[in-house]
């Protein structure tokens, strides 16, 4: 904000930020399978593009994880017709095919087929410390050198195919055979229609989408999921979550890594890029994306809490250009400490966060009263409530 860039410097700045965020956090290990959640929108498209470019660089700076891309067709939740959805899918497939990674496409209807195990948080692998990360990288590099010495690998600049796992990409596309059964679409449609407010719809959509993506990650052996949330989006999300009563989980909802699901960790590598930067980059460097109408397309400003917050922050940003970055910086300071004694507590079925419950309920008047109950006789009721 406030700095003017020429095209080349901008590109360098943008790419550097992406790599720096990944490098700084050291959570992605070489050779790890990472699932990229692609919505077709600008931020996730840019993220996928960055990964693509990052994989093809010369060996010293090359990204070293093994990506896949997942696209979720949410048309049923938005009331789109079959034809519209099919048309979007054609565009989506066209782009996915050029990527060279495996690309499962799933429809939101598959949510109904999810096993109950998605709601259980699996045992956590301890997050690698700095030492383990370095060891892992070193041993990976050692492996590469040995293989190169044995002449099994081509030059670093050779085609993507050699770096990827052995399955050819067309086989791994895992495209559903046809459109989902109408009954499921209808059921999903009804589910969303029964939700009265746009706010609740957006939250529901997000929850279902997350569960679905995690399921895909688990069944295909991905241990990380990358989402394209930008700085701007995360600032809006932070404020929205506060308004929705999710203040206790801000660190997970907006931080770089989200470990609430245990075996699969969600990371947000685009979190330092503003929407403006993303839009410019995509335009200047022709990053393909597919525009899909969503539940909140053309909704008015006051239609949901999300929209309100978006309007509020963006308007403020127009006059005070450090608004978004300030909110974002604040989010970086949030610490994920579980409350004392609640670390192993029950989790919310929908969002999988530990329930923010204070069993003694000491902060409320009700709680205070019930604590007294055991000691004093109940007060005589004086008036009908």
């Amino acid at each position, binding site marked *: 904000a406030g700095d003017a860039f020429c095209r080349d410097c901008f590109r360098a700045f943008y790419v550097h930020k992406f790599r720096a965020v990944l490098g700084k956090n050291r959570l992605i290990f070489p050779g790890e399978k990472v699932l990229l959640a692609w919505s*077709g*929108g*600008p931020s996730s498209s840019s993220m996928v593009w960055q990964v693509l470019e990052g994989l093809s660089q010369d060996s010293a700076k090359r990204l070293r994880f093994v990506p896949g891309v997942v696209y979720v067709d949410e048309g049923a939740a938005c009331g789109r017709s079959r034809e519209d959805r099919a048309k979007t899918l054609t565009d989506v497939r066209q782009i996915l095919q050029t990527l060279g990674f495996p690309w499962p496409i799933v429809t939101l209807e598959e949510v109904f087929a999810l096993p109950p195990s998605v709601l259980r948080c699996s045992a956590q692998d301890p997050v690698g410390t700095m030492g383990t990360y370095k060891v892992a990288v070193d041993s990976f590099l050692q492996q590469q050198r040995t293989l190169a010495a044995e002449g099994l690998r081509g030059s670093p600049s050779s085609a993507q195919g050699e770096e990827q796992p052995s399955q050819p990409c067309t086989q791994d596309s895992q495209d559903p055979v046809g459109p989902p059964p109408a009954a499921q679409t209808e059921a999903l449609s009804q589910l969303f229609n029964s939700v009265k407010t746009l706010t609740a719809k957006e939250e529901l959509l997000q929850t279902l989408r997350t569960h679905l993506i995690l399921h895909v990650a688990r069944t295909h052996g991905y241990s990380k999921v990358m989402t394209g949330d930008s700085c701007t989006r995360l600032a809006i999300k932070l404020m929205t979550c506060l308004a929705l009563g999710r203040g206790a989980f801000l660190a997970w909802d907006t931080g770089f890594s989200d470990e609430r699901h245990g075996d699969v960790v969600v990371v947000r590598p685009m979190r330092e890029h503003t929407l403006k930067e993303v*839009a410019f980059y995509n335009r200047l460097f022709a990053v393909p994306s597919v525009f899909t*109408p*969503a539940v909140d397309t*053309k909704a008015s400003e006051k239609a949901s809490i999300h929209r309100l917050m978006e*309007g509020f922050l*963006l308007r403020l940003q127009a006059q005070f250009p450090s608004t978004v970055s300030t909110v974002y910086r604040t989010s970086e300071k949030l610490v994920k400490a579980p409350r004392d004694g609640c670390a192993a507590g029950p989790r919310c079925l929908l969002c999988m966060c530990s329930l923010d419950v204070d069993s003694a309920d000491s902060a409320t008047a009700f709680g205070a009263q019930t604590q007294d109950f055991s000691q004093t006789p109940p007060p005589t009721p004086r008036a009908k409530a």
Partner: protein
Amino acid sequence: MAAPLSVEVEFGGGAELLFDGVKKHQVTLPGQEEPWVIRDLLVWIKKNLLKERPELFIQGDSVRPGILVLINDADWELLGELDYQLQDQDSILFISTLHGG
């Protein structure tokens, strides 16, 4: 007296939904007393191109916050924003960042 101008107006990022889904528009602006500036262009767009929900595109005399304006692939903030004087064959691109990710 400014001569008529021919400019290309383009919409992206979802903004095209408000313009019948048409992304590129070749526009001829009629000659007028004062040189054409972006402010005038916006008024013109609102009157002639915008098909629905003007409040989702225009706010006051400028674009809604969240909509980026690129003039010949450069940020309009570097060129004077609403006061930029349009030249013949300019390309003005409006990208909505408000949609999806």
